[in-house]
């Protein structure tokens, strides 16, 4: 268990720095408490999963991390800076990347352009520079295109000149990850990345998530229903139920936790 009063850049037991720290996060909608006083840490280079039955508050929590909701109380610290009240685009600039449960690509852009749009905040080309076509801007654009192609290669896509929305489903998922990677995130939020995938595609995506950490040194926060994915790649798993954190630990620990089994058996869904 992490120390509840950890400092801004506190180290946990193993002496690893935390990328993200959430303290006492609460969100109420009217009288309904969706998330209740949740503490949560994501260490550097870790894959952390957030699971729980439907309506447990996972998505609300996720939306608070990415900035779509502002918590009623509590705070988020990303790499030492308080981001609780920051807007989504400011968080992205701070190094937070995300994908969406119901893929939200820029449908009428090509795959490369999607990645280039994701790179937006890491490019410097000014408007005047773009209009005049200064050497600096041209060079940056050329390098950006090369990097975009490299990123597409990394996720296993080739830069095809079709609209993103015409890509096969599995490729769209991969493209969304490539687009998120383009903004050089330190922490990547993946919202049910294997939803709607067949076992083969799921296995390939699981492998890709592993490589995000191994090859790019990213931390990943994963919301996932597919328990095999969660249990095979997570370093740590946090379980929410009715807005409360009921369990936290390694996949093995969580799997054996009585309260988790009860929470899952208590609802129709067993993952």
């Amino acid at each position, binding site marked *: 268990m992490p120390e509840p009063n950890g400092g801004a850049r506190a180290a946990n037991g193993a002496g690893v720095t935390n990328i993200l720290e959430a303290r006492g996060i609460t969100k109420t909608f009217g009288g309904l408490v969706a998330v209740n006083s949740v503490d949560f840490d994501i260490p550097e280079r870790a894959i952390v999963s957030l699971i729980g039955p439907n309506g447990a508050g996972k998505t609300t929590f996720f*939306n608070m991390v990415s900035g*779509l909701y502002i918590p009623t109380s509590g705070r988020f610290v990303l790499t030492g800076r308080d981001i609780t009240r920051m807007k989504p685009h400011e968080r992205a600039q701070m190094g937070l990347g995300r994908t969406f449960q119901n893929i939200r690509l820029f449908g009428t852009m090509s795959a490369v352009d999607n990645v280039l749009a994701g790179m937006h905040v890491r490019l410097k080309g000014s408007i005047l520079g773009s209009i005049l076509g200064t050497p600096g801007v041209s060079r940056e654009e050329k390098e950006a295109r090369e990097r975009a192609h490299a990123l597409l290669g990394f996720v296993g896509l080739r830069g095809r000149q079709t609209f993103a929305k015409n890509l096969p489903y599995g490729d769209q998922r991969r493209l969304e990850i490539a687009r998120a990677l383009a903004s050089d995130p330190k922490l990547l939020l993946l919202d049910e990345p294997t939803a709607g995938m067949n076992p083969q595609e799921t296995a390939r995506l699981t492998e890709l998530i592993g490589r995000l950490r191994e090859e790019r040194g990213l931390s990943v926060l994963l919301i996932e229903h597919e328990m095999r994915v969660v249990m095979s790649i997570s370093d740590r798993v946090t379980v929410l139920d009715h807005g409360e954190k009921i369990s936290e630990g390694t996949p093995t620990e969580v799997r054996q936790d009585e309260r988790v089994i009860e929470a899952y058996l208590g609802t129709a869904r067993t993952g």
Partner: protein
Amino acid sequence: MTTGDATKTLSGALLEGLRHSSWQSRLAVAVVALMLALLLVQAVQDPGQFTSQLLIGLTNGAIIALIALGYTLVYGIIELINFAHGDNFMIGSFVGLTVLSGTLFGLGLFAPISGDSGTIIKVAGVLIALVVAMAACGLLNVGIERIAYKPLRNSPRLAVLITAIGMSFILQNVGLVWKGPAQVPFPDLISSANILPGDAIVFRWKDLFVLAVTIPLLVGLSYFIKNTKQGKAMRAVAQDKEAAAMVGINVNRTISVTFLLGGILAGASGVMYGLFNGITVFNVGFTQGLYAFTAAVLGGIGNLSGAVVGGLLIGIIGSMADQYVGVRWTSIVIFAVLVLVLVFRPTGLLGDRSATQGGGSGRA
């Protein structure tokens, strides 16, 4: 909890609200307060004139409110700013004028009704003009929806808005061909004499006429929406089209009924406008339509009582601006109200739908 505690929490909440309010909203409140204070000074200096002006504002506001209801009904149900609605109102005034002048398609059906006609003929003429204009505008509105908006039900919102603007120009030019570019006079059927004794406060027969037509219409509309099956269907469709369809509500028919109602109110409003102001013109729908849209937004678009309150307020703001700022500034004042309401309180005074994007940020 004791009452004392409650008061304490209330004042605390107010303080909290003040602390959290942006400088913009504080400024807005201050400006509104200043305006009210200035008006109050005028009211004390010349109460008769102020009251007369207030009454004229109410009458104008009633005419605007009827148009505003058409915007708000349609927006409530298909989230479209029906830009052509103001021009439908103009067509209503033209239809009314045509009926009163006794000509239809070039045929002289009866002698034109003028100020010299007998009282019974005048009353009957006005009633017939109202009914014909209401029917014509209702059907016109339904027709416009069928032809121009229905095929675009799944298109981007702005595509439908552009279509509505196109329809607005088409109607305006129909009016231009019909009655020409100049202002056309309405017969002077209703007396401008003051009902009230003395001339300190002016409340004319004309004003009474407008209120006498508007109030039954509002009561009827309210009854229709609250108590009839079709009215309930409208509310259901406004809430959730798909769910309404699933429980067996005919969504297309319900939308048509909504346009019909909006058109009927615009038709009545058009005839009243003509009789009240003595003139009408082919592009009257643009300005009046914008005033009415402002009213709908001010009250909270999609909110029916909001449209009425907003209409009356816009009427009063307009008449006050006429008197105390100068007639030529009135339209600027009202458009400024439109802009300011949308910027500072897009949900309107009574609030209903969020005008800003993203559910989270819309919460004030």
